[in-house]
């Protein structure tokens, strides 16, 4: 089974966790633990499906 992922939109100029990297305004799908960490750091917001 594939690891759970989450789609986020980057709100800071740059956020980087190992191989996962996003710049401001970019929308990308990352592993859930990475995405949740970025959201907690206020570096990203979750993008809900269908929006």
């Amino acid at each position, binding site marked *: 089974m594939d690891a759970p992922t989450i789609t986020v939109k980057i709100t*800071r*100029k*740059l*956020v*980087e*966790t*190992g191989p996962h990297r996003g710049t401001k305004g970019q929308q990308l799908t990352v592993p859930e633990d*990475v995405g949740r*960490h*970025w959201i*907690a*750091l206020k*570096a990203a917001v979750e993008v809900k499906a269908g929006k």
Partner: protein
Amino acid sequence: MAKYPAKGVIVKYAATATPTTEVTNKAEVGFEDGERELIPSTTHENTTVKTYLDSGLRDTFAVMLRLLLDPADTIHELMRSHHSAGTLGYLTLVLPDAGAAQWAGSGYITSYQIEGMTPEGELAVRIRFKYTSVETFTA
């Protein structure tokens, strides 16, 4: 010429993720390790300069702190107890640049040294925090 002074660096520490409480009385803050060891790939065919390959791995970072110790301070005491018991902690280092670049992650306090304690000196502790997994950098 320096672009930013180091003064104003912020360190946050907590027992749970995304710490919000600042470590106070910081006299010095250092950021080190993260060494990327290379694989030597020099052969007899090399003529003047050795060659290396990237292994694809680097070490995690470590944060060095020198604090003017206040044993009654909640965070100072938390750091002491985490070192003593080997408890996982969360540390965020925020640089004093305009964008407030920061590294966040979890790890262990691997050393806790009260230095000096001379009659005319201050009570200070040196703490080393080692990230145990990849840190998140934010600019």
